[in-house]
């Protein structure tokens, strides 16, 4: 190919990539704005007991979800792989799965509705945070072409979503017990809040276990080693043990209510560390890909 033509091809590709980035970022910012609007309506509706506003917030959040889904699919089409390689993709898909799961669970358990006060803002904050890590085009490493990896990542995302719902109810429990904030009266009675926190903590524990096991099966398939005690694996195991400890303390040692809620806050902090920060805690297979 003549040098001049090669150069113009290169420029064309660069320009096309710039356009791709712009569309992706704009769609995401659009979703952030719509989600933020939904959050304002939702918080206003919940706190001031305005059912119309609260109801409207769901229509708005669905609009945001449509934009967000479009952004994720658009990028998927461009990169040729799912949203799990760069930090930006990971945070965006975490937010997407959390919101979708919340909306699905809300259909099954309508009483978890007030958790929207945590889930809605968490959704747009995660996307906005992701946008600070500039999106980049990264090819899919061949090791990542495995269904077990997709399961590994998807189940961690699902676990995070359920843990966020559980932690919302833990916070609600503490607030409702300790304060006299009027909108908290709209929440179910303390005992029910406690049970919701317990149930979603159970979901989190199970999904975390499934994610961890899918990861070890993937590692075995790729490198013939199912567990390597690298920092990410170790912290994941520590977190899972804490999640299990929480369930046991609750079930057998009557750690209910406030004590259980505080303990779960610690579990939540651990899970955030394990998912987002442990990768920086040392050199490992995980850090090679995600640092």
């Amino acid at each position, binding site marked *: 190919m003549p040098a001049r033509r090669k150069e113009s091809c290169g420029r064309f590709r660069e320009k096309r990539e710039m356009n791709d980035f712009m569309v992706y970022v704009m769609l995401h910012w659009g979703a952030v704005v719509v989600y933020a609007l939904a959050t304002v309506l939702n918080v206003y509706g919940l706190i001031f007991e305005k059912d119309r506003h609260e109801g409207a917030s769901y229509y708005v959040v669905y609009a945001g979800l449509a934009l967000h889904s479009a952004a994720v699919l658009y990028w998927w089409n461009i990169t040729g792989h799912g949203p799990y390689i760069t930090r930006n993709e990971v945070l965006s898909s975490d937010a997407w799965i959390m919101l979708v799961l919340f909306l699905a669970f809300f259909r099954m*358990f309508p*009483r978890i509705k007030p958790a929207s006060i945590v889930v809605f803002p968490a959704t747009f904050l995660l996307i906005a945070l992701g946008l600070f890590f500039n999106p980049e*085009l*990264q*090819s899919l*490493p*061949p*090791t990542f*072409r*495995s269904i077990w990896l997709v399961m590994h990542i998807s189940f961690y995302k699902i676990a995070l979503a359920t843990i966020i719902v559980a932690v919302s109810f833990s916070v609600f429990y503490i607030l409702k017990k300790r304060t006299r904030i009027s909108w908290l009266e709209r929440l*179910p009675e303390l*005992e*029910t809040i406690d*049970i*919701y926190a*317990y*149930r979603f903590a*159970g*979901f989190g524990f*199970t*999904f975390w*276990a*499934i994610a961890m*096991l*899918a990861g*070890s*099966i993937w590692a*075995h*398939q*790729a*490198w*013939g*080693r*199912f*567990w*390597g*005690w*690298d*920092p990410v694996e*170790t*912290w994941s*195991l*520590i977190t899972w*043990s*804490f999640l*299990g*400890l929480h369930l*046991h*303390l609750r079930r*057998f*040692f009557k750690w209910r209510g406030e004590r259980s809620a505080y303990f779960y806050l610690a579990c939540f902090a651990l899970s955030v560390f394990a998912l987002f920060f442990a990768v920086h805690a040392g050199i490992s297979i995980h850090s090679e890909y995600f640092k």
Partner: protein
Amino acid sequence: MTKIKQLLLSRKTVLTLILLILAAVVTGYIFPQKFTATGEQLQNWQDAYPFWSLWGNRLGLDHVYTTPWFAVLLLTFLITLLLSTIEQVKFSYRKTFSRGIPPDASGVNVSASREDIIVTIRDAGYRLAFHDGPNLRFIRHRWGHWGNALLHAGIAVVISASLLIVITEKRGLIHLVEGDTFPAGGQWLLEETGILGGRFILPDAVRLERSDIEFWETDEIKSQTTVFSFVGADGKEARHKIGINLNVNDRGLRIYQGRSFGEAFYVSLSDSNGKEFNSVFNLDHPFKRDKASYGNFVLEGIPYTLKTKYYADAEKRTIDGKDPLLVMRLVRIDQSLGGVTGGGKEGRLKMDIVKKEKVLAEVSLRAGEKKPFGPYTAKLVHVAKWTGLIFTKSTGMPGIFAGFFIIIIGGTLTYFMPPREINAVKEGEGFNLAWKAAKFGNLYEDEFKRILEMLDQKGSR
């Protein structure tokens, strides 16, 4: 025996074991572990924390997961888990298949007919599990009683399988250059075997036929495949192709693509007397086309260190390594004692060694080139590819798969299908309906209220 069983099933024992395992894992994270840290890292850590390293050596804290005390801890935990699972299986069986109406069942009186009760409760998703004359017992999600048992059984299966793998596993890594052969019983570059593993000896020699790597435009790996052969003593060959996520099984051995790969540089140095020093330098493939990968080598008979770096492409235009450039430096390293510190209570002395390096010559070579190199003449005779191959022999992986699916089923039954039951006992003209949920009762109370409302509507018609 019963007392031991009671002790192992005690909630406090289970809690203590979980806490001890957690403590062991955290310790394993804090103390550098032999199998993840380099010798230098271990030494640095020991120098920095002499007190802890003393305890570390005594308790084996630098290899927590292979210590006997950790194995005992895990085994005890496994036994408690198995015993607890057996108890839960018995409980689940009783709950699922028991007949009769619980004597303590008492609830709300309704004036509905037996048929109305059956139809209404069935419509709400319950199934008639038992009937004794007019008395009825309905259960929704009766298999949900097995959730906890399966969840615990799944975890027990995974731990058992992991223990089995750790104890019996054999694992060896080699780096092989295209055309080279690794003899059966040869020295592994890295070998890991479980307590019951024994020495890992391959049934036949292994020859590397070809290593193919493709790259994306971004210099990241697109695909990697390796062709190798098992070569028997009788000359019989069995050829295999492996790649990333593509492993093969041969006579119970599973062979994986190693993560390392690169180029082998066949270098010949000759001094003024015509004496030749031939060596092969295996260097990792660089990550980027404009970045080098590095390696230091010491050759027998040469009193200097050879510091080498290599670019995948001499012009730095591609990453494929078809026209590599090897840069070598001849370095003289002088070491002297810089000072001695320490002593005190622990009586440990620390000597600082000062290294001084002097570069005597540098040369850049493409394949086939020959150039002067300080007191020598250097020639890059040939460049070939090398790659890593991992051989494993282990038992227990199917257990991990099985545990995975049992946990999924257990989790689904526990958290998505908690069983609820309604006992209808004939009382006068109507029935007494008692409702209870095995778990999360508060969340399903409305379900029973709706049933009562429907029965009420039917009764008033």
